[in-house]
């Protein structure tokens, strides 16, 4: 993104499955420090509901402030600037990332593993 006095900007991309029972909100947050160093973090939220007429309510799983590796900065920037996912990113967010988020909630995998899967959504842009 071009330089501006917006030192912190986030883009939350929302994707819902066609049966409208599952929704992922994938947030990318960019903060620029005074020394110009950029930090990208991911906020991943998975929502599910039993029926289409129900409210989604609180997220089933929240993975907050997942720090993006420097190797993925370009892809994070490209995703945020685009304001949308590439097809591979949608597939990953609704598939493995959502599944691992649920497994973390169920205590089957560690937070680190679930976060790593969520972060790979960014890498899929490459």
């Amino acid at each position: 993104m071009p330089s501006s006095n917006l030192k912190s900007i986030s883009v939350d991309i929302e994707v819902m499955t066609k049966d409208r029972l599952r929704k992922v909100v994938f947030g990318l947050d960019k903060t620029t420090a005074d020394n110009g160093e950029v930090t990208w973090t991911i906020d991943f939220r998975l929502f599910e509901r039993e029926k289409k007429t129900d409210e989604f309510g609180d997220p089933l799983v929240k993975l907050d402030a997942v720090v993006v590796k420097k190797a993925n900065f370009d892809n994070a920037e490209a995703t945020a600037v685009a304001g949308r996912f590439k097809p591979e990113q949608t597939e990953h967010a609704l598939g493995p990332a959502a599944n691992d988020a649920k497994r973390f909630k169920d205590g089957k995998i560690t937070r680190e593993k679930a976060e790593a899967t969520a972060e790979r959504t960014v890498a899929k842009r490459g």
Partner: protein
Amino acid sequence: MPKRVLSTLAAALVLSITTARADPCPDRGFEFFEIEGYRVKNVRVTGFWVLRRAMLAGNTAVADLAGKPFTAAGILKGKRALRDQLIAAPALFDSPVGVTVAAARVANCSAATKELDIEYPLFTTKMPLASIHTAEQASLEHEDPARALALAPANTRYRIAPMLGYDASQNVLGGGRLDVPSLFGTSIQLSLEGQGSSETTAAAISLAGGAERESGWLERVVWRGAFAYSDRPSDRLRLHSSRASGQVSLSTRAIGRIGAVVRFGSLFEGGSQRTGLTDAVLPSDLLASSRFGNWRSYAGVTARTRRSAMAASYGVLLGRTGSGKRIDYRKQVLDVVYDSRFLLAAQRPLSVETRFTAGALARLGPTPVSERFFGGNVETTFIPGSEWSMRANPVMRGIPAFRLNRVAPGDVPGGDHFAVLNLTVSVPVFGLPVIPKEAAENEEIRQAISGFVTDGADALAPIYELDDPAQKHLFDTVREGLARTTAAMEERVGAIEASVPEALKPAHQACADKIGDLASDASSITRTTPWRMFVNPDPEERGIPVIVDVCIMQLNSKLMDAELAERGDELKSLQQTIQTQVDKIDRTRARQLAQETMAFPSRVVQTIFDEMTVVSLSPLFLFDAGRIGPEVRGWRSTRYSLGGGARLTLASSVSFEFGYAWNLRPQPWEGRGALFVALRFLDIFGK
């Protein structure tokens, strides 16, 4: 007027007009201002005013920043709270994709006083794909963009919309509407509507529901059951009726490049009507009072482009009054609307609204007088209570409500046929953009939104691939086998752990991790699971090729476990089956469908930036021409109205319209003209 109305209006105007004129601060990170010891003077949220109001209400993480020492953590915590609020914000429709942009910056820094302001520019939107192609949606976007495009949190528990109006027939009219979108947590909507004046009483209660289909040509089904009572004045009689009705309306998915939606429906109603006349003064085939049963059928097409909207509707009503005949009267109505906008300058669209309505009533037996056509400056609709707007009477704005009802003084009230053309031209002389200039022109926010709207189809394409027959075939035939095989393989990998030599422990661990991931994915397959992920060869992922490589090639080539080898063979066979079907998925078609779906909504969002106004004041020019029959020799059956007025709109809040139209060829019972005043509160009250 209640105190709350005044305070809301005042807040709306202040928020709308006083868009922040922020002076930039030094281009430094937030830590700089913290170290320098700045204090926060003001905290602002910028963006669509309804959104700003909603975000500021009760958000202590933001409000608490004012008057305190500035901290980098504080400003980011405020943004975090706003994002959380936006993500949880309720909308009145589901959208397959959506985007929210939230930013934080400092402004108005004073090095002398060490004070600064914090500003949070916000923007959010979703796409109502099921209704976005209709002319009614186009009107709603201009009147209530918050609700139409989810630009702000919606009132999903209940909404109250008061109204106030005046016309010469009905006098000063007050009333309102209460909507409960989800009655007792169901998908049924309850609506109560009422209007009253010294001359008029009208009330209605309805229950409505519907469904949107995920695929197929039919997209939306809406049903409604209602009871309505009304007692309205005409010049020589009262139009009094009570009726119960049930209706169902269906609409297709957008068709073709223009995105036309075909819709049709049917309504049954029964009730009674009376007029205050006696049958003695009426022809033998007209009834002053009667019971009735009506069957209305209607069909139409609607479409829009970026700056125009059209809708054509035709309806036929077959009615009976219990005379013994199957059908006692037949009414037909045609209603065509074409609205266009020409952008003269930013936020200065010249709006031209045209409408042609015609109707004919055939009396085949005893017919209620109230089924005849009564015109004037109030419209009646063919499909009561529906979002589908289909006018059913001659609207002539120079004649008070329901007084356009005959050609000669001695005629029986009510027309047997009519045709009317209405023209309304307006152009705002004053307008403030929905998105404040600072936010709309900010390159970073603009880029994110532009990217979303110009090629949001990227995100949507995989969702459309899920409709492909190959995808469905895999769900129906392979799901169970894959879940069974991966579970068995995971179990086997666990069972052999103790016997794995030390040198192979890392390979075994890698295999256990990967097969655990795959087994988990396979056990939670739904119809919305993209099957391509199961044949993904990326070593970072857990596709079958990865498991085969890690567990069979790297581990079992040395372990030589027979059962693991057998599971590996089963997996390879499943991989082949899945790959064959995945290759059959028509990705081009899915991409094309996604592009077609997103193309128009994208333009709508673009329009928000460039054209839509949050406050606008527009002079109105009105012209109506029409005729009503039956004709009477020596009497003019044509009428013309010419007038002007003004419309003040505060988006998603208030619509105020007033004016006067002259009746250019008046008859004594019609008057020389009519004043109209209408004040409507859109979505101020609710939860």
